[in-house]
C-alpha cells in the first residue's frame, strides 16, 4: 500500500476553469428551452408550479462564480478522503493492497483512459525521466485538456447509447451523436446539461446528435424512458414494464407514468433532403393522425398503460409522474413542459441516483470494477461493494455542479486508481485492492494500431457508407463491428472472439501496416536503427509503451539470429507484439 506521504502532493495552486464556451452553452441552452416553452404558449401558472423561474437564475449564478470548480489541492484532498473511506470499507489498513503502478504502466493507463490512444515513445521516456512529484496529476490535467479526451469519451457514450438500440437504422445518428458529445465533453459541459439535451432533443438526427438516445429506440416512449432510467440513473425500471417485479420497489404503473412524459415524441423518416434521414418530432395536436404500417411516425397526445388481459384495448390513461421524486404533471400538458419537467427532475440534486450513476460508471471504467456491477444496475435493492465511498464520490460530483472532468481528476488521483493491476478478484475477496486490466474498446484498439502502424484514420461510422442510409462504412466502422462491445456489460464477462483473433493474426490491413517493405513504418525503422537491440526497444516502446525486460530482449535477439533474415524476423516480432494479450489490454 502506498503510504500517504509518498502521494504526489500539490505544490502550487492551480486554477482550473471549465472552458468558457461550456459555461456559455450552459445558460444559453437553458434560456433557449425557456423561450421555447413560452413560444408554445405555456401557461405561466404551470411554469411557476414547477419552479422553473426559480431555477434559471440559479444556473446563471453558478456559471458566473464557478463555485464547483476545484483547484489541484482540492482534487488531491478529495481523492485522499475517498481512499480513506475506501480503506475503512474494504478491510482496513491490514489488508494487503497492490503497490502503486510504475510510471510506464501509469502513463499508458492514463493515456488510454483519457484520450483513448497509447502514449508515443517520446512521452514515455520524458515521463519516466521527469522528477516532478506532481507529474501524475499534471499529465492527467493536460490529457483532459487534449481534444482527444472528448473524442474518446464521445465514442464511449455513443456505444453506451447505440449498443442497446432497438431501431437498427439508428446507426445513422452515429456521426452526429459523436460530434455532439465530443463538443460537449471537451467544453466540459456539466453532466446535467448534457443529459437534459438528450431528454429534450428534437430535429434531424443527422444534424442534432442529442437526438441519439431517442433515435436509438425509434422514439418508442417505453423504450426511451427505460434507457433514460438505465443510463442516467442506473435503475432498470423496464423490468416493471410488464409486471410488478417481486423484489424491486417500483410498480408497473410507475413505469408507465414515466413513459407518459414521452407520448408526444416520435421518430419519422425524412426523405426530403439530399440524404435520407430521420426526424425526432413532437405532436401537440389533440388528435394524432394514425401511423401507418405499425410504424409510429407521429406522437400521440397521451400514454396508455396496456391492459394485460386485453391487449387490444386502449388501456389506462397515465399521468406523467417521476417515480423517484413524485414530480407530476396534468394530463394534457404540452410536450415541451413534459420533457423539461422530466429533465429537471432526473438531473436534480435532490435525485441521488443521478450523481451516483455517473460516479459509479466512471469509477468502474477507470478502476476496473464498479461499486455496482453491472454499472447500470444500482438499485433500488442492490448493495454497493463500498457504499460510503460511492456516496462521498457522488456528493463531490454533485457539489461540483456535475463537473465531469473534475470527477475524472478525483478518481485518477486516488490510490485505488493508481495501484498496479492484478487478476480480477474472486467473489470472496475484498474489492479495490488493485486496479484491473481492461480490454481496449474497439476504437481504442483501432487507434493503437493506427498510430503504431501509421494507418491513416479514414471515415468513421456514419461516414460515406453502404445502403440508402449510408451506414457502416470505413475501416474504423468495420473494425468496430468486430472488436466493439457494449460498455455497460460486466467487465469480467467480456471475452475475445474467434473473428477478433483472426483479424489480428491475418487481416490484410494489419499485415500491410506491419510489413518491412520500403516506405512502411517498420521499413523505415529497420533502416534507421541498425542495432538489433535498439530496434527491439523501439518496437516495445511503440507497441506497448514500455521498455522490454532483459528476458524479452534476449528472446527477440535469439529469434532474429534463428530466422537469419533481419526484415522477416522483425516483422514477426512486431506481429507477436500486436497479437499479444498485453496489446489488447490496458494494465
Amino acid at each position, binding site marked *: 500500500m502506498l503510504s500517504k506521504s509518498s502521494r504526489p502532493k500539490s505544490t502550487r495552486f492551480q486554477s482550473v476553469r471549465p472552458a468558457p464556451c461550456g459555461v456559455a452553452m450552459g445558460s444559453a441552452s437553458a434560456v433557449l428551452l425557456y423561450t421555447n416553452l413560452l413560444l408554445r404558449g405555456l401557461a405561466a401558472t404551470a411554469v411557476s408550479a414547477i419552479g422553473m423561474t426559480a431555477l434559471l437564475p440559479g444556473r446563471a449564478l453558478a456559471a458566473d462564480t464557478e463555485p464547483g470548480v476545484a483547484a489541484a489541492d482540492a482534487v488531491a484532498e478529495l481523492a485522499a478522503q475517498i481512499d480513506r473511506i475506501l480503506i475503512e470499507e474494504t478491510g482496513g489498513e491490514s489488508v494487503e493492497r497492490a503497490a502503486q503502478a510504475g510510471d510506464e504502466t501509469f502513463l499508458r493507463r492514463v493515456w488510454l483512459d483519457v484520450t483513448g490512444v497509447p502514449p508515443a515513445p517520446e512521452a514515455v521516456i520524458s515521463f519516466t525521466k521527469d522528477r516532478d512529484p506532481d507529474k501524475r496529476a499534471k499529465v492527467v490535467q493536460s490529457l483532459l485538456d487534449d481534444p482527444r479526451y472528448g473524442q474518446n469519451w464521445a465514442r464511449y457514450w455513443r456505444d453506451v447509447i447505440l449498443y442497446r438500440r432497438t431501431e437498427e437504422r439508428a446507426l445513422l445518428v452515429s456521426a452526429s451523436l459523436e460530434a455532439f458529445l465530443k463538443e460537449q465533453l471537451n467544453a466540459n459541459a456539466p453532466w446535467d446539461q448534457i443529459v437534459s439535451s438528450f431528454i429534450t432533443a428534437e430535429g434531424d438526427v443527422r444534424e442534432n446528435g442529442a437526438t441519439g438516445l431517442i433515435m436509438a429506440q425509434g422514439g418508442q416512449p417505453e423504450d426511451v424512458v427505460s434507457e433514460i432510467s438505465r443510463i442516467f440513473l442506473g435503475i432498470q425500471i423496464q423490468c416493471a414494464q410488464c409486471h410488478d417485479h417481486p423484489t424491486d420497489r417500483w410498480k408497473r404503473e410507475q413505469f408507465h407514468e414515466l413513459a407518459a412524459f414521452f407520448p408526444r415524441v416520435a421518430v419519422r423518416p425524412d426523405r426530403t433532403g439530399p440524404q435520407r434521414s430521420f426526424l425526432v418530432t413532437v405532436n401537440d395536436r389533440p388528435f394524432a393522425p394514425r401511423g401507418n404500417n405499425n410504424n409510429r411516425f407521429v406522437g400521440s397526445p397521451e400514454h396508455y398503460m396496456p391492459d394485460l388481459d386485453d391487449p387490444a384495448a386502449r388501456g389506462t390513461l397515465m399521468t406523467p409522474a417521476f417515480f423517484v421524486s413524485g414530480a407530476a404533471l396534468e394530463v394534457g400538458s404540452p410536450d415541451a413542459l413534459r420533457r423539461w419537467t422530466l429533465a429537471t427532475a432526473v438531473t436534480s440534486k435532490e435525485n441521488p441516483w443521478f450523481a451516483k450513476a455517473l460516479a459509479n460508471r466512471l469509477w468502474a471504467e477507470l478502476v476496473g470494477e464498479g461499486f455496482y456491477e453491472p454499472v447500470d444496475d444500482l438499485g433500488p435493492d442492490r448493495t454497493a461493494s463500498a457504499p460510503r465511498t460511492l456516496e462521498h464520490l457522488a456528493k463531490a460530483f454533485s457539489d461540483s455542479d456535475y463537473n465531469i472532468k473534475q470527477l475524472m481528476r478525483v478518481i485518477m488521483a486516488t490510490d485505488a486508481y493508481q495501484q498496479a493491476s492484478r487478476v480480477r478478484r474472486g467473489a470472496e475477496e475484498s474489492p479495490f485492492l488493485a486496479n484491473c486490466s481492461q480490454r481496449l474498446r474497439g476504437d481504442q484498439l483501432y487507434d493503437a494500431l493506427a498510430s503504431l502502424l501509421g494507418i491513416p484514420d479514414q471515415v468513421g461510422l456514419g461516414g460515406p457508407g453502404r445502403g440508402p442510409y449510408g451506414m457502416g462504412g470505413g475501416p474504423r466502422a468495420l473494425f468496430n463491428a468486430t472488436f466493439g462491445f457494449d460498455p455497460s456489460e460486466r467487465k469480467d464477462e467480456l471475452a475475445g472472439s474467434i473473428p477478433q483473433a483472426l483479424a489480428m*493474426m491475418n487481416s490484410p490491413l494489419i499485415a500491410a501496416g506491419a510489413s518491412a517493405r520500403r516506405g512502411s513504418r517498420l521499413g523505415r525503422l529497420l533502416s534507421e536503427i541498425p542495432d538489433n537491440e535498439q530496434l527491439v526497444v523501439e518496437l516495445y516502446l511503440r507497441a506497448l509503451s514500455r521498455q522490454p525486460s532483459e528476458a524479452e530482449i534476449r528472446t527477440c535477439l535469439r529469434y532474429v539470429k534463428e530466422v537469419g533474415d533481419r526484415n522477416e524476423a522483425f516483422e514477426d516480432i512486431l506481429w507477436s507484439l500486436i497479437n499479444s494479450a498485453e496489446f489488447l489490454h490496458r494494465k
Partner: protein
Amino acid sequence: MSSCRPSSSASDNDWLRHEAFVRVDRRTVIDRRHFLRAVGGGAAALSWSQALSLQAAALKQRNRACILLWMQGGPSQFETFDPKPGHENGGPTKAISTSAPGVEISENLPRTAQAMKHICLLRSLTSKEGSHPRATFLMHTGYLPTSSVKHPTLGALVTHQIADREFELPSFVRIGQGRAGGGASAGGGFLGVEFDPFSVASAQRPPDNVQPATTEARFRRRLKLLGRLQDEYASSGGRQEVADHEKLYGKASKMVLSPKTGAFDLSKEPEKVRAAYGDSPFGAGCLLARRLVETGVTFVEVNLGNWDTHLDNFARTKELCGQMDQPYAQLLTDLEDRGLLESTLVVWMGEFGRTPRINPRGGRDHYPRAFCAALAGGGVQGGQAIGRTDAAGASIDDRPIGVADLFRTICHGLKVNADQENMSGIGRPIKVVDGGETVREVFGA
C-alpha cells in the same frame, strides 16, 4: 410456464430418450473424429469428393444439424405457402399443386412445389409482435427483447447444447448480411461470445482473415514466438488475460491451419453442382450451408432479405420467391441425395406474415396474427400442412401454433432439451424455451 419439467409420463420418456441419445452420440462424435483424422493422414491420396463421401458416411450417425433460412422483412404467406386464390385478399396470386397430394402453394414457388414431399408447412403460426426488430428478436430467441437479459439466438442455444466443442470450424455460421446480423438478436447473448455466429458476409467469396498472411510454416513460427513473449504481462497482473488469450488463439489458429476451412471455398464444388443452386447470393449461401453441414458445422443461418413489401407486394414477392425457390428446393434435394436430410433440420421462416388486406399501394403490411413457416429434414414428416387459416387468411381456423411451440418443435427435431435452464447474466435461470408444446404432428406422431 410455471413448472420446470413436463409432468406427463410421455415427456418423461422423452427426456430419458434424449439423455440416451446424447450419450450414444458423444461416442459417435469421438469415433468420427478419430476416423477423420485417419482419413486426414492419407489425405493426399484422396480427392476432395472422395474425402467428402467418406466424411458423409461417418456423419450419417452423427448429431443433428440445423439450417435456418431466415427471410428478413416478413414474407407474405399469401404469395408463398398459404395462397388464397378466389378471395379478394388473395390478390392475383394463383395456387399450384405440389408433390404432396392435397397441399397447394403459390405459383411463385414451382421448384419448392416439387420438393414438397420433404416439407411440412406450419400455416397457423401466431404472435403479437408486428415491429421488425422486436419480432426478429422473438423469432430468433423465443423471447421478447429486454435491455436487462440478452437472450441467446437459436443458433447459439442449439450449438451450446449439441455442438462438439473441439470441432475445428465454428459450430454456428451466419451467411449474408441481414438485420439479424446486427443488434440484439445477433448472437450468443448471455451464453457468451463463444456462441456468437461466425459471420460470412457473402458466400461467394472466402470469409475474411481465415487465410494466413504468410506461409503456413512462418505462421506457426510466429505463434511460437508469441507464446514466448507473453510471460511479462502474465506476471504483472495479466495472468487470466494471457490464459484466455492463449486459449482463444489456440482455437483460432487451429481453424486457420485446418484443412476443413476448405469447406468455405465454393470453387471446390463442381460447376454442375453450383449451377443447380443457381448463380445468386442466396443460392451460394444454401450451397455453402450444405458444405458446412457436411463438414460437421452444427448450425448455419442463411439470410435472404427485403421481404418487407409495403409497396408493390405482388411483383416484389414474386421476384423474391424467384431468388428463393431454386436454392431452397435444391438444398433439400441435395441433402437427401447425400444422406444428410434425416439428420439436418431445415427451417424456413421470417419474423411475421403480411396483412390479408391489400393496401392502396398494392402492398401488404405487417401481420403477426397468422403466418407460415416450413420445416424439412431432421425427422420431420414431409408432404403435409399443419394448421389452417380462414378463407380470408385473417384468422386461424385450426391449430394455432405459438412461437414457443415452434421453438419446442425445432428443439425436438434437433434433440435439444428445451427445458434445460441456462444462467443469465443477472443470475436468473432461463429455459431454452419458456412454455409451449412440441407440435407432434410435424414428426408424424
